[in-house]
């Protein structure tokens, strides 16, 4: 097998595409040139990223496809890229969703389209970088860099309160991650290395673990987001443009969960056990409380945003249960939520493009007007509820099973979240698509065009595929998770 430096290529290719986009003609009517460059870049990057799952050795728990570059003249501080079973699915998810975003953007008109596409392609590079960095400093650099394009996407192309939301997003995330920076520097000073693989061999005294755990927690709890650090999310989602919301819900939130698994759980086992009740407490509140908030929302995007917080509550429950089922559940839940919430945001975006509003009460009986969309929306709704056969079911089922082995009470309470999810999602579907046609809706409506159909179809297939055969993901993650699970006793409480 040829030794392709696949990860550097995945990071650099979007940057080359970015150059093409920026150099494309400015006076172009529909910015066709830049759109074509963006499509080519994202298609080739997605196809290249498929190289990873096909050449991945499932038996090896360590990092694979490792490429390391001299950065500072020191053996301990290198720019290192690599993937293991935990990060590999997320890289494919990132390239997949960015590709769909670019396809979805293709027929649209927007102000300054070149810059819009450029931001997404730049995001792709940073996202792949974040998931493939296996050195603390390179991880931090990619992790933070994401703020810049995302800030511009929300603030420039967003809705009416875009500026406020962009600030809130930027500052909330920044304040969490700077504390992580101190923790990273501390780890470097303590052990003289920032390589994640080598740091796994060290153990720290308990009281230091607690502080480091809190520093990492500050960063990822804001990112994922956990209650009560979630308040930036509804604002950012409501104001962001459709594709911005897709990336935000689809991938950026997953950085939090990924970080919890990669850092808090792997490096700091004692502190993780210590804080598990705390995490359970916050997660249960997130699941129940934000679900209730979601039920009363009048804005579709806000509803999905609050439901994201609730779904992420399951992810944190699964992660900190720290057994194989829990971690599997958390990873599947993250991937599936990445696909489902992205799909829902795409749908809402399509509705918004047609009626220029996201008010739930404005609609009614939409299924008679746009039957194809109502079909796809139903699939996505069932996925979000966790209907058996969809990917959402696998995630929630595994998570609840693992939590049950830890604490019956927590499992009991959080399983109500599934019912609540059904409540708000089905209510949404009923109000918008079923019933008599609302008088607001005029007769002439564009049916789904081909780009939308491609997007929705691809996402539905993914939901069903993972739902029917979760081993597609789980077979990759098992060996890498084994090491983490072995750090934790079978009974915590």
């Amino acid at each position, binding site marked *: 097998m040829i030794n392709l430096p696949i990860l550097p290529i995945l990071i650099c290719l979007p940057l080359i595409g970015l150059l093409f986009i920026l150099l494309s003609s400015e006076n172009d009517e529909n910015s066709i040139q830049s759109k074509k460059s963006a499509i080519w870049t994202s298609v080739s990057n997605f196809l290249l990223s498929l190289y990873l799952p096909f050449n991945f050795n499932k038996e090896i728990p360590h990092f694979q496809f490792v490429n390391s570059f001299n950065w500072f*003249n020191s053996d301990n501080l290198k720019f290192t890229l690599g993937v293991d079973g935990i990060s590999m699915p997320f890289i494919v998810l990132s390239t997949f969703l960015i590709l769909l975003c670019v396809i979805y953007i293709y027929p649209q008109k927007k102000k*300054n389209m070149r810059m819009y596409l450029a931001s997404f392609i730049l995001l792709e590079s940073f996202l792949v970088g974040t998931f493939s960095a296996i050195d603390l400093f390179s991880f931090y*650099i990619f992790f933070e860099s994401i*703020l*810049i394009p995302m800030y511009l996407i929300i603030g*420039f192309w967003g809705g009416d309160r875009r*500026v406020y939301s962009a*600030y809130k997003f930027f500052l909330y995330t920044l304040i969490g991650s700077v504390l992580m920076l*101190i923790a990273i520097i501390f780890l470097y*000073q303590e052990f003289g290395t920032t390589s994640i693989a080598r740091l796994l061999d060290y153990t720290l005294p308990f009281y230091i673990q607690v502080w480091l755990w809190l520093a990492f927690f500050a960063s990822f709890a804001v990112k994922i987001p956990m209650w009560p650090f979630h308040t930036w999310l509804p604002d950012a989602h409501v104001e962001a443009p459709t594709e911005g919301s897709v990336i935000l819900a689809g991938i950026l939130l997953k950085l939090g969960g990924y970080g919890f698994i990669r850092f808090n759980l792997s490096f700091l086992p004692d502190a993780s056990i210590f804080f598990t009740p705390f995490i359970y407490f916050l997660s249960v509140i997130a699941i129940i409380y934000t679900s209730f908030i979601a039920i009363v929302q009048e804005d579709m995007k806000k509803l999905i945003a609050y439901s994201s917080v609730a779904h992420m509550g399951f992810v944190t429950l699964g992660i900190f249960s720290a057994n194989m089922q829990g971690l599997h559940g958390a990873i599947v839940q993250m991937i599936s939520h990445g696909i489902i919430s992205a799909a829902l945001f795409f749908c809402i975006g399509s509705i918004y493009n047609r009626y220029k509003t996201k008010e739930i009460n404005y609609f009614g009986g939409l299924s008679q007007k746009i039957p194809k969309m109502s079909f796809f929306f139903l699939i996505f709704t069932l996925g979000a509820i966790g209907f058996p056969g969809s990917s959402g079911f696998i995630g929630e089922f595994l998570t609840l099973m693992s939590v049950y082995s830890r604490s019956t009470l927590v499992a009991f309470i959080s399983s109500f979240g599934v019912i609540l999810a059904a409540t708000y999602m089905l209510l949404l579907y009923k109000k918008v698509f079923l019933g008599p046609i609302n008088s607001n809706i005029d007769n002439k409506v564009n049916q789904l065009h081909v780009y939308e159909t491609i997007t929705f179809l691809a996402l539905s297939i993914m939901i069903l595929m993972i739902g029917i055969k979760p081993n597609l993901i789980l077979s990759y993650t098992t060996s890498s998770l084994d090491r983490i699970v072995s750090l934790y006793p079978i009974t915590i409480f």
Partner: protein
Amino acid sequence: MIILPEIILSLGFLLLLCISPFIKADSHKFIGYLGLLLIFLTQFSIVKDIFIFEEVFEGFFIIDSFGSFLKLIILISGGLVLFFYLIVKHDKSLNRPEFSLVVLISLIGMMFMVSANNLLSLFVSIELQSLALYILVSFSKEDLNSSEAGVKYFVVGSLSTCIFLFGSSLIYGLVGSTDFSSISNYMIDQPDIPMILIIGLIFILVSISLKISAAPFHMWTPDVYEGAPTIVTAFISTAPKVAVFGVLIRLLVFPFGEIIVDWGKLVIILSITSMIIGSLGAIMQSDIKRLMAYSTINHIGFMLMGLVPGTEEGITAISIYLILYLTMNLGVFLFILNMQRDQINVTAIKDLSGLYKTEPVMAGCLAIILFSMAGIPPLAGFVGKLLILNVVVDSNLFFLAVIAVLTSVIAAFYYIRMVKSIFFDEPTEELDILTNNQSKLLMILFSFFNLTVILYPQFFLNLSASIALSLFALK
């Protein structure tokens, strides 16, 4: 000759002074370009002898690579400001040959400052550069604000001078010499350091804090930055800051290195107050120049942190931070210089609104520099912050590191507020901005530098490590 650079600059300055009255047309440009040539020659002679170490004039001055390196940075930033002066249109009152000459003489003062090895020579050279700066600040004779700023700067500067003299006299009274090595030897011999010496040091520290605008001695900074002509603000926020920081490092590391326990706490207090005031003070500002004043205070506070451990790594980190700070600051000020409406300079943040529509390239460059100032990776500002934080965490000063990162988040708010104005706001009235290609090219260069530092940080580390080493060779 070991002090060749200073001699070249001084003689050249005198020559330019003599010929300036005889040039009729566009004399300020002619003298300006000659001044640039002179600076270039001086740099060349510094680079030639950069690794030489020698005491000259019986220990009055010291030539080492730390000093030579700082002189290079000072001259580069001074030269760039002079170049800005030549390529950008100004108010008529600034178009006089004296402007370049005064810049040159203050550069001479700074060069002496960073190589001073005696409290007396240090005092004289600080005065030389300060007096030149007072003139520069009040250079727009017709402009009331400029004169007011000049007076303010002069009053505060004289106060700082008095305090410095008082502190040195205390030290002289105790040690019996003003020579740095005598002071150092005195402290090594003494089993416990007399209180008077520490009080003397505190006075000197306060005086230098006034010059460097570290809080709580920062009060003059926003007013002077706002009142002075923009080109002068660009100058006083760069070269003199480097020079004074150089003096501070040299003083604290070499003669007073023995009492690090005492001055370490003071520097911690200075840096915490600077970071807090620098970040909170700027939030409500609506004028870019005032905002940049607070930004300077914030950056100074961040750099002071690196001084606290008094180690080589600290000095290395500070030197790199200084270089990166200069490129960011000069970029922003070059932009402000070009902000004009109907031939009049405007400096309000709201004047930036909708810049991306009229000047997309410039808007992008400025945004990169602003994000860099906020310390967002992968830009240059982050590298500087990372290196300083590394030093701070290494010496277990976690509370300091936490305060530093939290204040830098607050500071990020006002930098991204400017980015917001550039991209998100609708244009009010169009600026006729950046009409000349040199400015555009320079802005692109500055932002490109800020983008790419992350790829070769080791180059700067090696450079700064070697100069920090030369500083510690004295001990």
